[in-house]
């Protein structure tokens, strides 16, 4: 597709379960970003991938959060032992290396019961 694709669009899970969120960036975009959008905190940066370089994980809120990017394309954000405060919309964006703007997917709305 032409845009950034995220799946699932909605995810409801029980507290304590692990979840995986997927992002398929725009073809040719080597930079990939994850953000979290919640009512109390607004939009927060989580992690950044650029090509084969080590990711910038400085925004990950705890060690329950991890992300990987396989083959320089698709990325998966994993949240282990989910907590209610993890409820938010998780947005993925991609861009050409070192360039702006970032192109966003429609996000995954995560609800922790």
């Amino acid at each position, binding site marked *: 597709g032409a845009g950034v694709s995220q799946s699932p669009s909605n995810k409801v899970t029980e507290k304590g379960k692990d979840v995986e969120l997927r992002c398929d960036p725009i073809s040719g975009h080597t930079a990939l970003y994850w*953000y979290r959008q919640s009512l109390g905190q*607004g*939009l927060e*940066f989580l992690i*950044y991938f650029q090509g084969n370089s080590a990711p910038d994980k400085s925004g990950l809120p705890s060690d329950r959060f991890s992300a990987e990017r396989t083959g320089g394309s698709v990325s998966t954000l994993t949240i282990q032992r989910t907590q209610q405060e993890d409820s938010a919309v998780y947005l993925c964006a991609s861009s050409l290396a070192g360039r*702006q*703007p970032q192109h*966003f997917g429609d*996000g995954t709305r995560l609800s922790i019961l």
Partner: protein
Amino acid sequence: SQQGEEDPQALSIQEGENATMNCSYKTSINNLQWYRQNSGRGLVHLILIRSNEREKHSGRLRVTLDTSKKSSSLLITASRAADTASYFCAYQAGTALIFGKGTTLSVSS
């Protein structure tokens, strides 16, 4: 917090009126961007203004940047119902974009 601040938080206007949103930030920047977010959707890039630019236009959008005051404004002229959305300013800090909390614009017909 590095987060930018938008003002006002919410704005309600009639179709055809102009809408002005303001953004303040706290650090030196290379550029500042504005994004729009429709309900339940991702962010759409509207315009980028570089630190050496004072004003930039794109269609019905006009953006100004005052680096001495660390502030920017977004003007939407002749608003339409389809402009109803949240608007965010954002600037780069390292590899990340730092977003303001947004202005929610409601345009009624």
